[in-house]
């Protein structure tokens, strides 16, 4: 609150009456140009008000003389982006997977598009970058259930695994324990044998007991030496990669109850060009054959 305005003895100017610790504020009038700048900002705001959406009405709003809207801006930007992409997308639609891989332009476009599609559709199960998780295959390694070449990947992504699509990948591992095919002791022996296939230490007596059981029950799909079979999605058992865990308890659990993971048929949701881009992207994650 101003207390006392007076004339400053040095400058001869009036003070505002504000005083802080003996320092008094001179009441210097603002220069006129400052006022003109203020008027200019008012003119600017009026012009802005007239040109752009500015005032609400009961049901809508005054949309400005230029008819500008941020929604139309986004739509135009999207349309422009689609126009830029269109030639690439049509080329990808026409090209074979091998041709896409061979053309660096198409390959870059496909990997960029595939990355986005993967993040939106596949990453919830397979993880960012195809890192995978228990029960969801890692797509960056060199081990494939249904084949890691371009054609196999394209088929798997298009039609999925163990779903209602007529072209879906289908196979089923029996529930050896739950359905009473093998006893618990036999399952333990088979598990020991399976561990020995990949060089993991295992009890030798149990391994010997498990070998004939494996040959009789498992080798049909998984192969004599557990080398796996991508025709029926039977995992290779002789490597270090385990989808459901490579310790004995996990293996016993797998033999007892079976696993039979599923995956949707993406051709029902994504167009062909997108699936091609996804295929090329997954193939380039590091494990493509």
């Amino acid at each position, binding site marked *: 609150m101003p207390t006392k305005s007076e004339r400053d003895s040095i400058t001869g100017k009036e003070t505002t009456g504000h005083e802080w610790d003996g320092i008094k504020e001179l009441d210097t009038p603002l220069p006129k140009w400052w006022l003109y700048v203020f008027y200019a900002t008012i003119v600017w705001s009026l012009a802005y008000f007239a040109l752009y959406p500015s005032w609400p009405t009961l049901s809508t709003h005054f949309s400005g003389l230029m008819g500008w809207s941020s929604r139309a801006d986004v739509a135009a930007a999207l349309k422009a982006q689609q126009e830029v992409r269109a030639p690439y997308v049509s080329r990808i639609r026409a090209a074979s997977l091998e041709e896409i891989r061979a053309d660096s332009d198409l390959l870059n476009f496909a990997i960029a598009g595939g990355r986005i599609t993967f993040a939106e559709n596949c990453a919830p199960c397979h993880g960012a970058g195809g*890192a995978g998780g228990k029960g969801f295959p890692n797509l960056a390694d060199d081990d494939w259930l249904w084949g890691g070449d371009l054609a196999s990947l394209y088929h798997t992504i298009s039609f999925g695994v163990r779903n209602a699509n007529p072209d879906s990948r289908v196979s089923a591992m029996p529930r050896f324990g739950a359905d009473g095919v093998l006893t618990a002791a036999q399952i333990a022996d088979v598990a020991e044998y399976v561990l020995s296939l990949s060089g993991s230490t295992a009890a030798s007596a149990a391994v010997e007991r498990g070998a004939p059981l494996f040959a009789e029950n498992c080798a049909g799909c998984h192969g004599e030496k557990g080398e796996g079979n991508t025709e029926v999605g039977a995992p290779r058992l002789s490597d270090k990669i385990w989808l459901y865990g490579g310790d004995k308890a996990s293996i016993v659990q797998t033999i007892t109850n079976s696993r039979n993971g599923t995956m949707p048929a993406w051709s029902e949701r994504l167009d062909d060009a997108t699936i091609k881009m996804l295929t090329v992207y997954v193939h380039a994650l590091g494990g493509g054959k």
Partner: protein
Amino acid sequence: MPLDMTQGTSGADAPSAGVRSANAPLYADRIKVYPKAVKGTFRRIKWAILAICLGLYYVVPWIRWDRGPGAPDQAVLIDMPGRRAYFFAIEIWPQEVYFLTGLLILAAVALFLVTSLLGRVWCGYACPQTVWTDLFMLVERLIEGDRNARMRLDQQPLSWAKAAKKTAKHAAWLVIAAATGGAWVFYFADAPTALKDIFTGQASVTIYFFVGLFTATTYLLAGWAREQVCTYMCPWPRIQAAMFDENTLIVTYRKWRGEPRGKHKAGQSWDGRGDCIDCQQCVAVCPVGIDIRNGPQMECIGCGLCIDACNAVMDKVGRPRNLIAFATLAGEQARVSGTPSKYRLIRPRTVLYGTLLVLVAATMGAALWLRSTVELSVQRDRAPLFVTLSDGAIRNGYTLKILNKTRADRDYALSVSGVPSAKISVVGAETATGDKLVLSAKADTVATYRVYVTAPAGVLKTESVPLVFALQAHGAREQAQYQSIFMGPAK
């Protein structure tokens, strides 16, 4: 309001306490300054600096500098879309913007040093606001005449002659302003092309916008606002008080010599009076419209034109020069007390600024000298952190960016160290090539490679080990390194 609000009212013209006097203006009209032409040493220096500054500004974009095919041949160019800045033999990439920072620091410290030595000479001589204002005043003087003619013209009612003069002046100003804006954009685009494009309507909206912006600001600031920019808008005059001390040279009216002032007729004695004959010439030539005889003032830009004006008068009346002079507070006090002292160039303040200046300049010079023409940056994949392969080997993925800052395509040998028996392979050429790999980068580009590093099963002793990528240019000594890490399963 407090009841005692009327206390302190002591006279008819004194305002009531807490209430503005009724006729106190809220806004002050500008008191227009009509600086008179002046001749002298400082005016000559000011003209010379003006010519150098404007000459450099308008001419530099037109200097050509051959950098070979495919590269711009403009000596000084900031290529925004191309992400390069060129300064004669120096080429700067965006990530080296610290060179610009260094240059600005250098300029700031130099300004501090000069200000602590010579006061506001930057303001008076070299600041763009001063330089263009001076140029605009010159044009004004040529068209409308000197101080008195201009004052008369402004008081005349509008006539054809007055309108013609005013139109000619503003037209000339606008031409200069447009040339100024034009020259500005030439620093950001190839000058000959941009000039042609501007006149044929081919130039980009950006170019027209900036030409327009700089035309408008030059015209308004140098033509209309002038000293108001220095007095009201610019923060630098407020800051530089911190660089002043009693040994800083500032434009000083020697009160002890000039007072008591008064008119003087030829033949009169100079005894018992000061040298100031109150001719008002120092006020008439002042570009900011102050009376230097009132002592150091906030508005003074230290141009020294009042010194020239006063010296001419002193010569005429036969008194010694330098009644107004660049002088220091300490020096003046010493003179008054009869013990003239020398100007102290070396003071803690100037030594500090000088040392800083040398240090920054040396650092900048060394950085430029040692600037590498190859840089490597490595980004490690985080998803997945690592991949276990079927034989138990661990693979990590990396994205490498190789910056080839030369004007030739180059091959580089990439090697890794830190993980025993590690193999590296580049995605695209999917063959493991041992622990060395040859990667190429085209001239003046950034090459991006996806690189896999695979460690055989069992060599990792801990979850994470340091991994160093080393890049060696073929047939050149340049090399670059980047330290990343290699990760495996938790131990």
